């Protein structure tokens, strides 16, 4: 995980994923695009690998947006929106590997520890190709651009 520790109660955007697994980079790419569009007004960090550290990063924050890839069987490029404060995340956000914690586990661990931010919304971008390699599927790239643009514009006027 890279990026600063939380210093303010403003919006924090977290991009999660793996740059070297094609569509798994969707959340990272969306977060980078938010950073480019939103400039310094929006705090953006990237999270890779084990996500157990998220509890410490978002604890005490007012509003956190987490951007990640998803694999639920929906059409490629579909954007899922989940309110993590409302309850456990669906299976699509649990990871196959458990060497470290994934998004669902990090959220539920934070919930158990009372460390969830006041508001945590997760956007999951449905991917298709998660094998080794770089580059997003066209539908995922389009969804990344559209989602990031919409979020950055929305917050710029918040």
């Amino acid at each position, binding site marked *: *995980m890279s990026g600063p520790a939380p210093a303010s109660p403003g919006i924090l955007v977290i991009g999660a994923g793996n740059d070297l697994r094609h569509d798994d980079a969707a959340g990272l790419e969306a977060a980078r695009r938010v950073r480019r569009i939103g400039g310094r007004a929006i705090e953006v960090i990237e999270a890779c690998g084990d996500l*157990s550290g998220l509890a410490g990063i978002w604890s005490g924050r007012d509003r956190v947006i987490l951007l990640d890839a998803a694999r639920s069987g929906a059409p490629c490029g579909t954007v899922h929106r989940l309110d993590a404060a409302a309850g456990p995340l669906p299976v699509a956000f649990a990871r196959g590997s458990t060497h*470290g914690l994934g998004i669902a586990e990090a959220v539920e*661990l934070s919930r158990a520890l009372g460390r969830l931010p006041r508001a945590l919304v997760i956007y999951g971008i449905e991917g298709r190709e998660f094998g080794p390699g770089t580059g997003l599927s066209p539908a995922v790239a389009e969804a990344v651009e559209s989602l990031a643009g919409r979020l950055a514009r929305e917050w710029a006027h918040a």
Partner: protein
Amino acid sequence: MTEKDSTRRIRVEALARVEGEGALHVEVREGRVEAVRLEIYEPPRFFEAFLRGRDFSEAPDITARICGICPVAYQMSAVQAMEDALGITVDAATRALRRLLYCGEWIESHTLHVYMLHAPDFLGYPDAIALARDHPRIVERGLALKKAGNDLVRVIGGREIHPINVRVGGFHRAPRVAELKALAATLERAREDALASVRWVGGFEFPDFEADYEFVALRHPSQYPFNEGRIASSSGLDIDVHAYREHFIEEQVPHSTALHSVLRGRGAYFLGPLARYSLNFERLPAIARDAAREAGLASVCRNPFRSIVVRAVEILFACDEALRLIGNYEPPAGPAQGPALTAALAAMLESAPRAGAGCAATEAPRGLLYHRYRLEADGRIAEASIIPPTSQNQNTIESDLRRLVQDSLALDDTALTLRCEQAIRNYDPCISCATHFLRLEVNRQ
């Protein structure tokens, strides 16, 4: 599970709380265990093939990508094997900084396994989240301890996951003294948390299970091993790393995409914390030896279920060692320091003989990690061989399971499955590393 006549079958499709994809299949016929197969079906990852044709200087960063939990181990074995091939000897300050980087990886990797993956087995929880609901302060302690390791890797390695600061000859940038001193307070708290961790896991209940393993680990004259030492075993093996291939053999087995390893003429052997600890107890600092004894460990531990205690002792050691190294830290004075190193290091590498072979073994959190490379005259990699600890431990894991299932046939299938998974997690297997490797199936007939 299904039961048919005298047949008893359990199959767990994917083992949880281990890294990578694999399964366990156990055949029980008329009350006797006939076969145990650790089936590793994660596809081979062909890293050794990726490396062919790449420049020698790329190996540390390419091999670091094999694992997100133990990238430092891959970097250390790769960089030292290349230096061996090129005839480069690094100075004491560089060796100390590499040791400090390795401390960070042991702290984060071991803490993740002790708190998030293995402890729930001993306390009757399905996972760390359920553990956190009942014991939030304990899990918070684990998270803080892991973060201390992450911080160390980030400051020295450039980032927490897949660090990028290691290079043949040294480091791209040596951290400033002030950067490391700033970590001292965090590591002092981490050392206290590590001591509390040893006491916590030392109070768990452990199955009465021991075996006469042949432990294999690096052994250094004076230091608890990370990067240096001879390869030693509990049965008297004592060899230079260059003799590794004369004594260790990799074998293909039909049910695994990871190669198995045996000691020539002797069979299965045991790598990892238990082996390191049992071969190097006297090299631990007093604080770690005392904590181990207080937690009920003798100087040799042959119960793999107690590996969680040994891992906690190694976390304590790594925190203490990191503080010692930071206290003595001086940036490496050799060519590998800061941007100005480039010309000096390039000149040194330019003059190094290219065509040749080199090897190294270092102590990854899961045990001995061996790398060997053969280079072409232009410095490109002609041949690479990477032998990770999990693949070397497969035979021993299967052997443990064979005995454990035989001794535990009175358990119902749910309890037996949990016991088998716990036994596999004793080894903190990293299947992704090994495939270049779980489901559980017990077939009782």
